[in-house]
């Protein structure tokens, strides 16, 4: 059941949910790996997932939420799952015992691969393209804020 879509992602309730409060968010771009998504689309995917999680907190009285991408499905899928202490779900893992040498070795290998991100990071400054365009609040806005409040309260109703 589709619950949200825009030009970059879709969100739906899976047919076969894990719990009451399970939303799946997918990019429209047909990819399997998160790393195949452009940065903007990745950020947007997590944004929608995060909002869905926030809504689950309130909407189904979740005590927590998990957002999990396993890259084991035909399409990249972010699962947003409401959590409660007695829900019978368990995503905890047993920590491995790795010695210092192994940790150091893997750290170096990861660092070598991730280091290049820093170079691409030059785009980073242009990233916040639009965000700060909101006008300073004025007296007029305050009057409007009051109205917004009214609406907000109305919309709160079932």
């Amino acid at each position: 059941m589709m619950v949200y879509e825009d030009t970059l992602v879709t969100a739906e309730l899976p047919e076969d949910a894990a719990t009451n409060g399970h939303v799946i968010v997918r990019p429209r771009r047909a990819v399997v790996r998160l790393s195949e998504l452009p940065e903007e689309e990745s950020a947007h995917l997590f944004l929608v997932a995060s909002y869905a999680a926030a809504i689950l907190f309130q909407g189904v009285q979740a005590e927590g939420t998990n957002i999990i991408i396993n890259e084991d499905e035909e399409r990249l899928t972010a699962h947003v799952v409401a959590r409660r202490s007695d829900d019978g779900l368990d995503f905890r893992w047993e920590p491995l015992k790795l010695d210092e040498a192994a940790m150091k070795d893997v750290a170096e290998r990861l660092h070598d691969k991730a280091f290049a991100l820093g170079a691409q990071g030059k785009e980073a400054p242009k990233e916040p393209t639009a965000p700060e365009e909101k006008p300073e609040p004025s007296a007029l806005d305050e009057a409007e804020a009051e109205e917004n409040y009214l609406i907000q309260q109305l919309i709160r109703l079932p």
Partner: protein
Amino acid sequence: MADEPSQEELLAQQKANCIFCKIVAGEIPSKSVYEDERMAAVLDINPAAKGHTLVMTKEHYPIMPLIPPEEFAHLFGKTAPLSGAVAAGALTKRCTTFIANGAVAGQQSPHFLFHLIPREQGDGLDKLSVPARGVNQSDLAEMMRRNLYAVMRQHLTQTGKLSLLQTGSAMTEPAAPPVEEGQAATPAPTAQTAPAAPPEAAQAPQAAPVTPAPAPRPAAPRLSLDQLGRAIEENPEIKALLINNPAKLQGILAANPELRQIFAGVDVERLGAALRQQHLAKGAPATTTGEGPPAAMSAQAPTQEAPAAPKEAALVPARELTLPQIFAFVDRKPRLKQLMLYDPEGLKRLIPENERLSRFFEQSNVNAIIQAYQEHAKATHGVRATVEPSDKEEPEGEPAKRRTSPNREQAEDAWDEVRGSWGHKADLDRIGRLFR
């Protein structure tokens, strides 16, 4: 946006003790995987797999929704290539991204972070997969649809990306009127500016704690007359405007498409007149204060000419309500809730002095109610952080002490406090603003 002082203090305290802030600052050694000006990724010292990496913002944000939009976009933008790098560094292709919000979900740190875990066949981590358990959640669809659309629309409007919503599909709620940019950028007042209206428990006891409206300017739903009636009862300012100054309300309607839509087809003058009659019949003055949750609690404190909460709506005493009804009632009264949770003694002192309070608690076991409510609050949201007083509600005779959350057992981990705020109703309202 000025946060409540107590929350800021809390955050400062939390930061000072935060292991991950120290890791970011280099005060605690770690194995760095990636770092830029805003974020850091280090190896998890208790890895689920070789190459298990923790990703975090350098700035300390206790929970995901508190990350400002720019940082959020950077962090989760970089996550894409970083997950590829983590997998490649671990000589595999696949990588799990794992985020836990809240202790129940496995969030262990008050510095929001998440996991990138390289995966391979037979790695024994199948439990990270989300099981299909056949739960039917069709009930959830409408709530999720409405709210997700509303928050996204608001966010995209505010970040200038509204065009992303133009999918030309049925999802874009037909009822949604176009939003003018300027309007939508207006900061929303917090829910706490809500007047603690006098009890309407009888009329609207089930005013759904469940349907949150995270966005200050979501698409307006179409209300039935019945719903409109309840909406009015629930919104003292509107009711007061209807009663006292329907002309002004019409002015507001004219300027506000969403509100106008809610009142579509309603004769505001006549409705106002009817309400006025009804009101007078109850023997209540229609004048009250507009801004004031405090006034609502300190029964007779009519102030200026501002529109406001009708004072004398039917107050159903606690003894005639079921516990859930009492909870629902208290949940809607920020001041009362505050007192119940933080200052029960103060509340008990206040009861004999306050007419409405004494009527409400008449012949009831106050201690039992307070205790039950505290347990309820603990169970639903984690006790504290249930109430964050807004700047506006400073009732006369109420010292500012509640600002610092009295009776707080200092030692109890500050984290609980912030996490507890997840469950609070007002949170979603705030989230709308926080995400900008």
